[in-house]
């Protein structure tokens, strides 16, 4: 064990490639955590995360602190490098607006329906003769100018507001939302979502101590791997919501004040969102099987 630690420390001092450094650091960090108790002090191996995808030559990766949820004071456990094309794109507020409005409207079906003059019961007969009665001329008692008559231009039947924005536009919306969260200091990266207790008060006090805000969106990789404590704590809280990485969307990111991503989620998002930058147009729809779809 000590030999492994020493080897890890020696390897860390030598700057190696991205993945190797990351893996070694994580290994050494894991082996360090297990035997030691919760309250540890002194030099720890920092958790360094490097992006798995090549960064364009003219751009530098953006960085963020890697925090931990295990203690109140563990705010700087490591440093994560984030791909600039995902976390530092142009802040296109118009795209963000388009995607947010699309999310709100594409599922909408309005069920409002009113009857026209043809559908209202009655009104087939001319109420009085055209000339001679002294009253205005009318053809039916259900015309729209009559009380109890049909509606002239009212809502007609269930209407669907379904439309789809192009896939690349929706992807760009996600990238812009992540960029804006990082630029406004509302994005926090966490090594994992493990909590010491399942008490929801611990989570609220942690958010208050670190000044995260009133509403927090926690994103993990998949439902199966979510730790029990965080699931129990968030199920009892209204403003702290836990979603898998596939459930990340622009509306939720805008609705919650803070966004918490794990390192695995960051890798997943980078892989999925960067693929669209350099893909061919599909010959057949993407929901059918492809051999190289990420």
């Amino acid at each position: 064990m000590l030999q492994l630690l020493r080897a890890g420390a020696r390897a860390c001092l030598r700057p190696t490639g991205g993945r190797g450094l990351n893996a070694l650091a994580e290994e050494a960090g894991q082996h360090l955590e297990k035997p030691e108790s919760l309250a540890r002090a002194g030099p720890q191996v920092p958790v360094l995360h490097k992006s798995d995808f090549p960064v364009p030559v003219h751009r530098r990766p953006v960085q963020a602190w890697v925090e931990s949820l295990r203690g109140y004071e563990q705010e700087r456990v490591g440093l994560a490098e984030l791909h600039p094309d995902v976390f530092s794109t142009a802040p296109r507020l118009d795209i963000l607006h388009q995607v947010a409005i699309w999310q709100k409207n594409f599922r909408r079906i309005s069920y409002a329906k009113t009857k026209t003059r043809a559908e209202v019961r009655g009104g087939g007969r001319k109420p009085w003769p055209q000339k001679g009665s002294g009253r205005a001329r009318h053809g039916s008692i259900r015309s729209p100018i009559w009380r109890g008559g049909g509606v002239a231009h009212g809502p007609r039947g269930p209407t669907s507001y379904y439309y789809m924005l192009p896939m690349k536009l929706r992807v760009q919306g996600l990238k812009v939302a992540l960029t804006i969260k990082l630029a406004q200091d509302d994005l926090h990266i966490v090594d994992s979502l493990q909590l010491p207790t399942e008490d929801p008060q611990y989570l609220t006090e942690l958010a208050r101590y670190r000044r995260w805000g009133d509403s927090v969106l926690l994103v993990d990789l998949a439902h199966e791997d979510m730790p029990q404590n965080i699931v129990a704590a968030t199920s009892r809280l209204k403003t702290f919501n836990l979603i898998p990485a596939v459930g990340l969307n622009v509306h939720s990111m805008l609705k919650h004040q803070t966004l918490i991503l794990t390192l695995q989620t960051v890798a997943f998002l980078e892989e999925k969102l960067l693929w669209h930058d350099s893909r061919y147009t599909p010959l057949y729809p993407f929901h059918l099987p492809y051999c190289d779809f990420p």
Partner: protein
Amino acid sequence: MAAISGLGVTRRGLAWIIAGVPRRELWSRFSASSFYRDDQSQSSATSMEDRSQFMNREEKKPVVAETLEEVKKEPILVCPPLRSRTYIPPKDLQSRLESCVKEIFGSSAPSNWQNVSLEDGHLKFSFLSRLADDLGHAVPNSRLHEMCRVRDVLDFYNVPVQDRCKFDELIASNLPPNVKITWGY
């Protein structure tokens, strides 16, 4: 018999009732929780002793486990007091930075310490976290990528930060006599 069946007894209990077993033996078999449900049951002296022993045995285990857990919880999960975001750069900031650079980067030329690059992840992390712990003010995520050299870090830490909102600042500043600000927060 009706009172017993109204308790919601287990299948085992029902079997005992049907077999016509005397009540003393019935109650001694039941668990401690079901005793509390029925306040009207008439219990004999012998079964009371059995029950109290059974209950004591149950109570001892959770009490011991609880005290252990509480002792572990208290020193770790107490929330520390809220920190204020105000930051006033100390007067010896330059010297502090220089000493930090020398500690973490090892030997560096004294005239060139401001030009030291922070490209390596390890060194950057240790340097910035050390400074944040010392000064009580950390570089936010949005500005981490700007910190390429120690000079950028020095410029960042030279800027004071106030915790007041704009309205409080306006109220505190010199206003003309015909301007009144009422701010309920």
